[in-house]
């Protein structure tokens, strides 16, 4: 490099370094996140294979930040979704989009864990936010003296989601007794609650019918499905409808057998009964 060219390079470098303070900010300093935003959660609540669950991560910070947005990445097979109130592309803090310095708040999101996921897995959590605190630590919200600039930052953390084996029954039948008028023909609702894991393609149909009873299903289908969708979501209760035509029955007490089919880790069939009183 010639002396003249070396001189020109030196001038350019000096211009870059020396004029930065003139502009009021040094690029390096402006990029430093001094908010102290950090996750207090390293491990979420445990889930079981096949479960859909809302999980949360608690955050704190030294300075107030706004415009909070969190996105979560999970391993293949695990689905993450967000509150629909924000459009479904991200989640924010529970209380607002602002994390006030020296306080705590949490972000919540939903994970759907496949039945094949039997070991703990990591989530990569990226939280983006805006700081309005100046380099001098003064923040817009609580006083003057900041440099009146808003800076966007993000923090990435990894949290572990423990996966433990499910315990308890796959589902419980909430409705075990029904009373219907003699000569009636109407739908009745049967409640079912899932255990810890989701039960896909949950269907209910009547088994061998008592003499004179005719059973129908919504949409003239061969089975009844939960009102809120084809799956019975873990730890939730849903209803299935059966149309009971008792016009051919005499008053009395009967046992109505049920055939319940669903898919957890694999397709399964279970039986149930309803005590039917025709009066």
């Amino acid at each position, binding site marked *: 490099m010639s*002396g*003249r060219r070396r*001189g020109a390079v*030196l*001038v350019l470098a*000096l*211009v870059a370094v*020396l*004029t*930065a*303070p*003139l*502009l*009021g*900010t040094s690029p390096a300093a402006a990029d430093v996140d001094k908010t102290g935003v950090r996750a*207090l*959660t390293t491990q*979420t*609540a*445990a*889930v079981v294979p096949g*479960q*859909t*669950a*809302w*999980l*949360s*991560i*608690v955050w704190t910070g030294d300075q*107030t930040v706004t415009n909070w947005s969190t996105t979560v990445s999970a391993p293949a097979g695990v689905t993450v979704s967000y*509150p629909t109130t924000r459009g479904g592309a991200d989640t924010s803090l*529970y*209380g*607002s989009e*602002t994390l*006030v*310095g*020296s*306080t*705590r*708040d*949490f972000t*919540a999101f*939903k994970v759907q864990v496949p039945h094949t996921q039997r070991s703990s897995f990591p989530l990569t959590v990226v939280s983006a936010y805006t700081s309005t605190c*100046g*380099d*001098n630590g*003064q923040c817009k*919200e*609580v*006083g*003057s*003296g900041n*440099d009146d600039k808003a800076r966007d930052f993000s923090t990435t953390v990894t949290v572990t989601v423990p996966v433990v084996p499910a315990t308890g029954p796959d589902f419980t039948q909430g409705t075990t007794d029904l009373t219907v008028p003699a000569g009636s023909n109407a739908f009745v609702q049967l409640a079912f609650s899932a255990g810890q894991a989701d039960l896909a393609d949950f269907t209910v149909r009547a088994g061998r019918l008592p003499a004179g009873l005719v059973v129908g299903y919504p949409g003239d289908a061969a089975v009844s499905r939960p009102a809120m969708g084809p799956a019975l*979501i*873990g*730890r*939730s209760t849903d209803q299935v409808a059966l149309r009971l035509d008792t016009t051919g029955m005499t008053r009395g007490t009967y046992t109505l057998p049920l055939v319940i089919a669903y898919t957890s880790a694999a397709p399964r069939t279970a039986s149930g009964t309803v005590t039917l009183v025709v009066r």
Partner: protein
Amino acid sequence: MWCGDRRLARGLVALAALAVLGTTAACGAQEPAAEPAAATPTGTPADAATGRIAEVEFARQCTVASANYADEAQFTIELDTHLAAAGFTHEQWKRWHDALAVSPELVTQFAEISARGCPAEPPG
């Protein structure tokens, strides 16, 4: 000294002068402005009621990450249950939470309650 070096020297002097001015200006901008205390927003004052709400909130923050829910609404149901037990409504909590952003008193009160630590973690 050849011509280029002289121009370089003149440039360096000029840039150094600019840098001094610039640094001074930047430092000046970073100095906390002396403003009357009255200009500082104080927001909602902290009292016993805000302290009890802060305690409910902090207790929730201690346990929320160890719970999982089938339904998103359960987060609010859980909060409201604890608020009701303490004699508060969700609306009161919301007003308190919104006031945190503009009330250093409330923040200090919340921080003092938080400093006691969650039951499972050491204080500090």
